[in-house]
Each structure stands twice: as structure tokens, then as C-alpha cells.
């Protein structure tokens, strides 16, 4: 049995496609992470955004943002990865926290700011989805094993039908990337390619046309 994707009651979620992660002078690069591997998600995300606009599928962007003094960083920032604070990762009001130019949200899109890996925890995402009566979510963005996967786990157990676009996500390690897609496909989502999503949405589009 295959979980089918359509465009009705569906939204595209673009996770954390920010300068910090996807640009050479972003803060992730200062921590020594290979930003190119995250920027590799950019073409796929651009395709997904363009397709969603054409299909009339609403677009939701998530944006990782910390207070400049990181008082909202908590256990993850203070104890697990204090270096995030040292480099000022995604600090509010900085270029680092902005969504990359090629994916700048348009009027009518929704931007959800978050300060934890899950876009559901302590954010407005769930109320926005409920108000829009969305039941299915298509995910792209970064990073596959961290914010994408944590958000997908949360979405699925809240009974959203989840689809992850394998060629529109990015991760810095091969093994974590591979297992993230395997895990999401195992119990939390259906893993698709951009072409497969385009096919699903084209069918819907041609029906309308």
C-alpha cells in the first residue's frame, strides 16, 4: 500500500534554508561543517517551491532563530553544542538567520520561527496547519537528520501524512543522511523524489486545467 500524494489539503514545508547553513560565509561553515552539502538541497528546494506555487500548494518556511544572547538556547546550546553560541548561529536580526535569497518567501507564504529542531515544538505551526485544514506535508530543506527528521517525526505522530523529498534535503554526514531517510521511510513518512512530487501535483493540475 502506498500513501498517495495529491495537492489537496497539502502544504510544502521548507526547513531552515538559511544563510547560516547554505552559504560559504554562514556560521555553520565557521564551525567547520561542509556548507556545500547543505547548499546541495537548494536546487531541489527551488524546484519544490516553484511547483508548489504552480499547484496552488501553500508554502511554509521554517527559520531557526535564537535571541542574540542565546537565552533561549537551553540544553542543546548550553551543554550539547556550545560552539553554536560562540559563532552566533542564526542570531535574531542578522544576515545569518535570513532565508537564502533564492528562496525568499513571497507575500502569502508563512514563515515559522523556531529555536528547537522540531518546527512543531513551541511554535505556531500546528495552529497554522489546523486553520488551513492541511493534512499532508511535503518536506524539503536542511538538515535531513536534525531539523527535517525531528519535524517529520513530530508531524507524523500528530497524524499529518508526511512526504520527504530525498533530492531536496541536505546533511553534512553520509551515514546520518542515509539512516535519516531510511528511518523516516520506515515509520514516519513516504520518501519521494522531486520528479515524483511533480508528477503527483501535475496530475492534479491537469485535472483542474
Amino acid at each position: 500500500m502506498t500513501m498517495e500524494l495529491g495537492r489537496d489539503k497539502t502544504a510544502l514545508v521548507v526547513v531552515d534554508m538559511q544563510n547560516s547553513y547554505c552559504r560559504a560565509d554562514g556560521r555553520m561553515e565557521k564551525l567547520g561543517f561542509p556548507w556545500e552539502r547543505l547548499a546541495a538541497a537548494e536546487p531541489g528546494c527551488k524546484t519544490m517551491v516553484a511547483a508548489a506555487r504552480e499547484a496552488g500548494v501553500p508554502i511554509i518556511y521554517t527559520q531557526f532563530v535564537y535571541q542574540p544572547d542565546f537565552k533561549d538556547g537551553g540544553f542543546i546550546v548550553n551543554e550539547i553544542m556550545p560552539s553554536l553560541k560562540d559563532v552566533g548561529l542564526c542570531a535574531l536580526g542578522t544576515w545569518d538567520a535570513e532565508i537564502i535569497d533564492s528562496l525568499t518567501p513571497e507575500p502569502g507564504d508563512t514563515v515559522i520561527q523556531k529555536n528547537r529542531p522540531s518546527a512543531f515544538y513551541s511554535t505556531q505551526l500546528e495552529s497554522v496547519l489546523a486553520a488551513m485544514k492541511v493534512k499532508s506535508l511535503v518536506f524539503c530543506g536542511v538538515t535531513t537528520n536534525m531539523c527535517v527528521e525531528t519535524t517529520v517525526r513530530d508531524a507524523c505522530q500528530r497524524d499529518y501524512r508526511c512526504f520527504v523529498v530525498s533530492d531536496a534535503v541536505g546533511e553534512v554526514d553520509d551515514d546520518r543522511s542515509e539512516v535519516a531517510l531510511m528511518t523516516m521511510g520506515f515509520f514516519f513518512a513516504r520518501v519521494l523524489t522531486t520528479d515524483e512530487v511533480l508528477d503527483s501535483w501535475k496530475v492534479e493540475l491537469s485535472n483542474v486545467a
Partner: protein
Amino acid sequence: MTIELQKENCALIVVDMQNGFLDAKGSMAQSGFDWEKLAAASPGVQRLVAGARKADVPVFWTQYVYEPDFRDGGVQIEEIMPGLKEVNLCVAGTWDAELHPDMKPEDTDIIIEKNRPSSFYSTRLESYLRSQGIENVVVCGVTTNICVETTVRDASQRDFRTFVVRDAVGEVDDFRGQTALKAMEYLFARVMNVNDVLDEWGVELSNAA
């Protein structure tokens, strides 16, 4: 920098150590999963529980339980893994859903029933932890990559100082098991051995109790 485990304001969370996962006749075994890899978590879990008793650390047991007609199964049961319904995974009131006989909850322990991978989502766990002033959680049980990891991700981003015990967890697939520990260590938890936990709690067990 080491994230120190304290026994003050600490709780042990034992995830899903049930017949359905750990026994040769359980529903996971019937689904073709390698139950022995899950049962392998049992000795470590038993030592942690014994240590927690000695250290006066409260023990929370989670228990995966579905309604007999699976009306509470949602997307995961209906669309992702319908086979779980056919083997009657962890149905309320059945032997499959009971904690394994090697697990010995005491009357004062809290048992948290859940029907989603996270022990936090839609359960009473967080209110119990907060009301007892718990700030540190040690997590063990099964399966490493699914219910343990989803629970750990949720605990960490709720700012519980989170510890996972690598020799007291189990997963049916080695690659997913190992990489799950790596992902948790990366951003969500400190990964420890049972002996490290006992040392930092300041307890010694006689005869590998």
C-alpha cells in the same frame, strides 16, 4: 566538555520493554523483526533499574498500547505500517502489551501509556516530570532508532538534560541502531554506558543485580 549526570532531580525512563517487542512470540517477532536484538537491551535495563532504586531515582515506564480496533493508530498504522494491525501489536489488555516479566515496576513507579513513538506526545509524562522538579532524564529501552530516539529528541528540546544508555537500548537493525546513537549524541543527548550511569549516581550493584 562533559555533560555531568547527577542523581538529584533525575529520573530513569524505561521505554517500551514489553512482551510485544522482547519475546519470541511477541508481535514484533511475528512481523519478522529480530526480537533478540531488542531483548539484548534487557540486562542493561535491569541493572539501570536496580541502580535507580539504590540511588532513589524515580523510574518511569512507558508502554506502547493501542485500542483493540486500532482507531487510535492514525497515519502510522493506517498508511505507513498497516502490518502492525495484522499482528495486533501491543493491543490494550493483551499479553503482548504487558511489560516483560523481567521488568519489575514497583507500586510507586509511574507507568505512561502511549500510542505514538514519543513518550511526550499526548501523554502525562511531561507533567509528572515537571511537577517532581525533574531536570535530568536517563533513557533506555527499545527501539533505539524509533521510540527511544523520538523520546530523546523531545526530552532534549524541552530542556531536560538528556542521557542515553548505549548498552541498555536495542534496535532490530545494527546500522540504524548505531547511527541513531550518533544522531542523539550529535545534538540531543550524552551517550553513556550503564557503568558510567551507576558511577555518576554513586551506586554499586552486587552480583550484577
